């Protein structure tokens, strides 16, 4: 593949890694309200998949999607500001970590109701088809989400109507503390695709190029009007389900398992590949450093940004304002 592309993947993976590491620090110092779900360890499938799209295509994330908009090309400033609940946040401070969606790069929302993004992605694809444009929709969902009825309904409609949607299962082996094989009848989520006549492949989620190639092929099928594809990326999250001490005492997974996965770190694997292709270590270090600085600047931006004004809490519920006497006084 095009080396520049791989370099750009490497850069975006670095951005995501630094972004989430920064979020972790902020969380531990009590600066992030609510919860934070990190993708550290999953950057390969996130970036590999997103970069197979063009900027007009759509992408749907979920509760663990700080990195997905970045993979799709979003700037990090407004994302970091959102996580800190600032007025300059991508959602103006109304969404936070679990809804970090940048619609300007085609991310169509990140619903943290597990599985709920699946039919929404199908709907976006239906819209594209009706509008006669060539946009495809990439839908990320977890192994846990695949057990929701939404998965079935979405897979069926997408296949039925031959819609331009790619279902990308981020199988990181767990839903919170529950191993996927304890809640899904079969080890491979992708085994379900055949029941809809939908092609499916399993890829190594730690190899961004492998994911990129599979998604690129799926995107081609979609643009040719041949309908959906399911891709199951086997991956792993280094951190627990979410930040904070809640899971530290838990033994739902072994240290060996974690160590083994870390040896196949997506950034490391991409770097090895680039070095092998003759890209200089210095070049890669510069890219790394630039990514680090970009995130540091985003943090600076976020910290300098003002908090939203209380009255803003009463904006954006409706696009067409409520008329009549509907609004009443309250606490």
């Amino acid at each position, binding site marked *: 593949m095009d080396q520049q592309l791989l370099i750009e993947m490497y850069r975006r993976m670095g951005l995501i890694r630094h972004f989430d590491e920064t979020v972790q620090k902020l969380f531990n110092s009590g600066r992030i309200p609510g919860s934070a779900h990190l993708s550290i360890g999953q950057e390969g499938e996130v970036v590999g998949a997103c970069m197979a799209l063009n900027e007009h295509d759509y992408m749907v994330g979920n509760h663990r999607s700080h990195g997905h908009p970045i993979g799709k090309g979003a700037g990090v400033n407004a994302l970091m500001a959102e996580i800190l609940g600032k007025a300059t946040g991508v959602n103006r401070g109304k969404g936070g970590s679990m809804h970090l969606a940048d619609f300007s790069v085609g991310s169509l929302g990140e619903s943290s109701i597990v599985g*709920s993004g699946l039919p929404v992605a199908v709907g976006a694809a239906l819209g594209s088809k009706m509008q006669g444009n060539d946009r495809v929709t990439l839908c990320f969902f977890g192994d846990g989400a695949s057990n929701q009825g939404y998965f079935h*309904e*979405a897979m069926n409609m997408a296949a039925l109507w031959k819609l331009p949607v790619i279902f990308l299962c981020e199988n990181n082996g767990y839903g919170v503390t529950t191993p996927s094989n304890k809640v899904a009848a079969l080890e491979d989520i992708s085994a379900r695709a055949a029941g809809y006549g939908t092609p499916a492949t399993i890829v190594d989620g730690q190899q961004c190029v492998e994911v990129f190639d599979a998604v690129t092929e799926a995107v081609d099928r979609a643009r040719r009007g041949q309908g959906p594809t399911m891709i199951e990326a086997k991956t792993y999250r280094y951190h627990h389900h979410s930040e904070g001490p809640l899971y530290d005492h838990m033994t739902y997974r072994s240290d060996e398992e974690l160590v083994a996965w870390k040896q196949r770190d997506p950034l490391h694997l991409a770097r090895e590949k680039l070095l092998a292709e003759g890209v200089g270590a210095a070049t890669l270090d510069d890219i790394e450093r630039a990514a680090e600085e970009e995130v540091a600047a985003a943090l600076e931006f976020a910290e300098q940004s003002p908090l939203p004004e209380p009255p803003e809490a009463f904006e*954006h519920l409706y696009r067409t304002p409520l008329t009549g*006497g*509907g609004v009443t006084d309250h606490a």
Partner: protein
Amino acid sequence: MREVTFLQAVAEAQAEEMARDDSVFLMGEDVSGNVYGSSGGLLDQFGAERVLDTPICESGFTGVAIGAAMVGMRPIVDYTIASFMYLATDQLVSMAAKSSYMYGGQTHIPAVFRAAMFYNGGIAAQHSDRNYSMYMNVPGLKVVVPSSPFDAKGLLKTAIRDDDPVLVFEDGNLWGRRGEVPEDEYLLPFGQANILTEGSDVTLVAIAARVGEAVKAATRLAEEGISVEVIDPRTLVPLDSGTILESVAKTGRLLVVDQGHRTCGAAGEIAALVAEQGFWDLQAPIKRLTAPDMQIPFSPALEKGFYPEVEQIVTATRALMEE
């Protein structure tokens, strides 16, 4: 003026808006077949893609409508029966109602969700829900309850042009009713109640098919010298509290008539509103006449009397005048 049925009025509204705006389309189970009569002729006029038959998966196709709305389409979802909305509650609440807000206005969901309420027809507990009140508790949704063919058409057209999710609850008992509907285009604004009869002794706020019962009751009561003002809110979210409060300021008495369940229902909300903002005008307790807090039985022998009709309204109003 010409008269058409409630269903024809709905079909006209859909056809007119689909002709006016290519992004408007209809989706639901068996919609192309026009089983119930609200999509007559649409298939021939607009084709199968814009009159889209869905699998039976209310939660999924509601999500599909929301996704399509996010990318610029304006879906009209036909659930046929309101009881089936429970399967779609997550998409309606977590996605339709919340997306514009939680994404800070980056997106919005211009979608209409039509549902008919088929109570009082012997179709038992699972098909007789009058559940608009549950959705009134969800900020981000708008709730419409037309009581005539005229209102059905004018409010549905407004709903289709509205940029937010709008739930339109059609009273199945009215589907076959005929009423005057102008040939010329018109729209009815949300949040503006309709005063059907002016009166000075008591205010009757009625919803959907209860409006007709209330008007009949008003006529009967007029003969007894009781002057009744009948108000149809037309939309429950937004609610035209001003018109209701002004009326009570004049009459001093309020009876709310609703076919929904009593507890946490629309009738209670209107009663609470007046007890809070119109208290000093009240000369008597606020009364609610609603369906009981009971599920719906199949046998007409049991369902009979569940929903307030003329007789009950007349009796309750008389009693209220005695207070």
